[in-house]
Structures are given as structure tokens and as C-alpha cells.
């Protein structure tokens, strides 16, 4: 999931590797390290400053309640069904999980942008490059959950602030 998020954030999943090596497989360990080194090398140097917003949003997303609950409940929901008695197969559950992941990430990105003083929709768009309609839609969502508030109009432009 973190790999998927890294792709959404533009950091690239090639930077994160997960592998299983048993204690007796020294040769395998060497291969894993060589592979990881090669693919990270291909991506080049990582500068945390240029990804400041992305990292902050990713952190908020991964530590947020929504995703932690969804991941924690996945096995239960896909094997025993949800509270409404509906049965979920793993594939459709993961589809929803991916959508939630992307949505939460974008919301957090907007939150971060507003917090840093980009208060209008257009300003946020210039900072994070997300579609204008999508930003307005997600801002409404952030308002509903009391993360962001609408503070009034300034030169006919709606202004937002974080709560």
C-alpha cells in the first residue's frame, strides 16, 4: 500500500523494496540488495525538500484513522462480510481501498497547501497541480469533517483556512 501511495505521490514505488530472505540464503540476500540498489540508482538522488508536500501528505494519510481501520478490517470483511452482512471479495475491497487511499492523499495534500498559506482554489491548484474541480470537491469534504473552514470572499475569490 505504501508503494501504491509512493506512485500516487510521484515519489516512485521503485524506491521502496520488500523482500523475504531466509537466514540460510546469503546468496539471495546479496541478489536482493543488488536489485534494490540498481533500481534506486536508476531513479537517481532523492531530495526530500522538493517532495516536502508529498511526504507530509503521505504521512498524514498513512497515520490517519481511515486507512488504518480499512487495512485492519480487511481480513474480517473479506472473509466474514461487513456489518450489513454483505460479502466482499478481496479484489473489490482492494479497489475501494485504492480509491480511498488516493482520495485521502489528495485531501491531505490540499490540507497541507491551505496550511502553508495557499488559501484559494486556484492558488492550491498552482501549488499541487490537482484538477480545479477535484480541489473544490475535496475542499467541501474537508469542510464537512471540520478540517478546513471557509472564511469569506476576498476580491470575489473564496478563501479557506485550516482549523
Amino acid at each position, binding site marked *: *500500500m*505504501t508503494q501504491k501511495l509512493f506512485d500516487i505521490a510521484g*515519489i516512485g514505488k*521503485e*524506491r*521502496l*523494496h*520488500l*523482500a*523475504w*530472505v*531466509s*537466514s*540460510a*540464503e*546469503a*546468496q*539471495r*540476500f*546479496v541478489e*536482493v*540488495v*543488488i536489485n*534494490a*540498489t540498481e*533500481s*534506486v*540508482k536508476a*531513479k*537517481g*538522488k*532523492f*531530495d*526530500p525538500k522538493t*517532495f516536502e508536500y508529498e*511526504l507530509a501528505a*503521505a*504521512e498524514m494519510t*498513512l*497515520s490517519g484513522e481511515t486507512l488504518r481501520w480499512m487495512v485492519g478490517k480487511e481480513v474480517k470483511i473479506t472473509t466474514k462480510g461487513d456489518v450489513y452482512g454483505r460479502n466482499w471479495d478481496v479484489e473489490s475491497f482492494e479497489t475501494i481501498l485504492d480509491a480511498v487511499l488516493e482520495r485521502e492523499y489528495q485531501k491531505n495534500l490540499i490540507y497541507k497547501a491551505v496550511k502553508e498559506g495557499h488559501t484559494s482554489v486556484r492558488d492550491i491548484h498552482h501549488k499541487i497541480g490537482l484538477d480545479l474541480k477535484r480541489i473544490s470537491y475535496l475542499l467541501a469534504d474537508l469542510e464537512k469533517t471540520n478540517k478546513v473552514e471557509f472564511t469569506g470572499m476576498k476580491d470575489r475569490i473564496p478563501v479557506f483556512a485550516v482549523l
Partner: protein
Amino acid sequence: MADFEPKIVAFLCNWCAYAGADLAGVSRLQYPPSIRTVRVMCSGRVDPMFVLEAFKDGSDGVLVAG
């Protein structure tokens, strides 16, 4: 940057990959000097937060091996 050597933070499980890395060292297998090892008692201990923290502090990649 032909001689760019990435910095990779490697979270290694004490019982599996760490022992594997140890064995690789003992049997003198050559591997790139790019990894910085963090020994954890189980790879399940690794939280996504650790990974993000590693990137924030300027590592180029992260490897979780169990």
C-alpha cells in the same frame, strides 16, 4: 552521475534477513555498500511511518526484508 551510490535504509528482520546478511558477510559474498542496516525483531514491526521518516531524512531508497 556514473558513480552515484544511493543511500538505502534496510530494515532487516533479526531472524531472517539479518542472519542472511550476516551469513553473506561470513561467506565473503560481495554486495553493494549502499545499505544502512536497521535491525528489527520482526519485519512486522516496520511501520509505514518509519519508511517515510527515512525518506524525510534524505535516504534514496528503503528496503524491508524479512
